[in-house]
């Protein structure tokens, strides 16, 4: 374990000729699962390529656990990167793909073989491991790339759209694997379009739009800072009409809508803390509250508020 456990971007900009990749990015990413969220072209892959040294910043400095990305000989002892590139060395089997990587890493034959089988087992590809990758399905190719990126036991795992092409069962298993790796203290950096999955697995999110970081942090923290969008809270209760009438006693409540099934009220408030206190008071005065749940503090809502519905639906 290294003393410096952060991935740090300091005023990073990257231009591809005249085209902007990312601009003025400042980040300090702690261990855990961090999701990069944004539409196509927002700069997710550029950020990942920057932190792994596949591209160089036009301006600024990056350090990954204190290592500069232009030192691959040291960086990739600690970093594994499962890229979006769907091309493999010609004629390789899944086993050879992982094994050859470990030989490049410097492992001796026996150690490389042992680590290869462990990684392949971890991603559930034991049976087809001896088959050529050219005959693999999209999901299998994703998993063999994942095996290659974790085979050497990295401290930082960078995953570009890792859930693409996986069927629901494997998707759930893979998410569980990411969770387990993060719980072991690893950095897991994921880019994804699938917002509800990001919401489910992330410890923190980085929202990107047009090359700029528009928000970062824990998703609920990001949501609570968005004062211009009142928080939506769904309250399930036995007397929605009475509840709706009562909540308007509070100035911070801007809207109360009876839910379409008639069994709850969707409330919009600028001050959720104050509203929860009011709700306690209402509960003591004849309204039976069954459940209270925030309705828009997920990634999807935050994303839509910040970046806009049009881009969110891309």
């Amino acid at each position, binding site marked *: 374990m290294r003393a410096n456990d952060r991935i740090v971007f300091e005023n990073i900009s990257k231009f*591809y000729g005249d085209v902007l990749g990312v601009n003025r990015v400042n980040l300090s990413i702690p261990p855990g699962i961090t999701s990069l969220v944004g539409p196509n072209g927002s700069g997710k892959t550029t950020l990942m*390529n920057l932190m*792994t*040294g*596949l*591209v*160089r910043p036009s301006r600024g400095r990056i350090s990954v656990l204190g290592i500069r990305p*232009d030192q*691959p*000989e*040291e*960086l*990739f*002892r600690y970093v594994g*990167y499962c*890229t979006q*590139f769907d*091309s*493999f*060395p*010609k*004629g390789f089997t899944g086993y050879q793909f992982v094994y*050859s*990587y470990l*030989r*490049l*890493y*410097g492992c*001796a034959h026996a150690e490389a073989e042992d680590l290869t089988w462990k990684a392949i087992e971890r991603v559930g590809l034991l049976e087809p491991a001896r088959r050529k990758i050219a005959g693999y399905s999209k999901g299998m190719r994703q998993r063999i790339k994942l095996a290659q990126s974790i085979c050497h036991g990295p401290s930082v795992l960078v995953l570009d759209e890792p859930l693409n092409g996986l069927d629901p069962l494997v998707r759930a298993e893979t998410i569980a694997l990411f969770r387990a790796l993060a719980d072991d203290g690893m950095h897991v950096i994921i880019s994804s379009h699938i917002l509800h999955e990001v919401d489910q697995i992330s410890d923190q999110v980085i929202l990107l739009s047009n090359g700029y970081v528009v928000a970062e942090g824990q998703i609920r923290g990001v949501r609570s800072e968005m004062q211009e969008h009142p928080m939506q809270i769904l309250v399930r209760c036995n007397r929605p009409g009475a509840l709706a009438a009562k909540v308007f006693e509070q100035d911070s409540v801007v809207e109360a809508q009876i839910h379409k099934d008639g069994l709850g009220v969707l409330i919009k408030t600028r001050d959720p803390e104050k509203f929860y206190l009011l709700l306690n008071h209402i509960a003591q005065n004849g309204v039976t509250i069954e459940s209270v749940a925030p309705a828009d503090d997920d990634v999807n809502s935050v994303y839509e508020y910040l970046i806009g519905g049009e881009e969110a639906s891309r």
Partner: protein
Amino acid sequence: MNPLWVTQVLAVLRLEMRKTFFSKRGFWIYLLAFAPVALYTGKSIVGMKLGRQPDFGTDTNVFATVFQLFYLRLAIFFGCLGVFMNLFRGEVLDKSLHYYFLAPIRREVLLAGKFLAGAVATCLIFTTSTILQIAGMYWQDGWRIFSDYLMNGNGFAHIAGYLGATVLACVGYGSIFLAAGVLFRNPLIPAAVILVWESINSFLPSLLQKFSVIYYLKSLCPIQVIPETGAFFAVLSVNTDPMPAWIAVPGLLLVSAAVLVAASFQVRRMEINYATE
């Protein structure tokens, strides 16, 4: 126990050898390398069938001429172009270079491993062809004359000279084409420039002649021939200012090393951006 960089060079070598030797893409290189073998063997077979009298002296001159004018200048030149330029550029076009760039390996070590793989592959292909060419050419002359050439003439020195020139050609052209594949997005342009430069070498002033691979290789060829086909070919093959082998060999190796060092600086800065290729 090997140092890490040696283990990594060997790992790159193993990977690259598979690709170089067993790719369909490289078929034309074998064709180019072994065309003279087929030609000489055919000549010997036809000669024997027709009962022609073998002429050892003519065979030796023909071999020396073809070796200089075709084998070194075209077959090895284009063979090395095909192998070495693809070591990096081919991987960029196949979108597979990131496999190496994501490993904890110094880019200079990667370049060394790839160069070594290319050198081993081309040296094996072209020296094998050189040996088979000699066998094919002198087949008709018979073992008695050939063994006399080896034992009592300059046979061993000649064969060693041809094999040495073949190996040095692979190393010299290999380093240049590897560098071109790294430095240029479209390597066909530098390849054409190098071909022209190497071709006009004989017509250049003495100092400029020294900045080419063929100048050193001509100095190493054991037999200086003056083809009867015309003054143009004579100028191409005759070396008016030959360099002694003890300077030519280390000179060529030093130039190759310098070219590889320059290429390694570029590889160190190389980015993966397949979309723009």
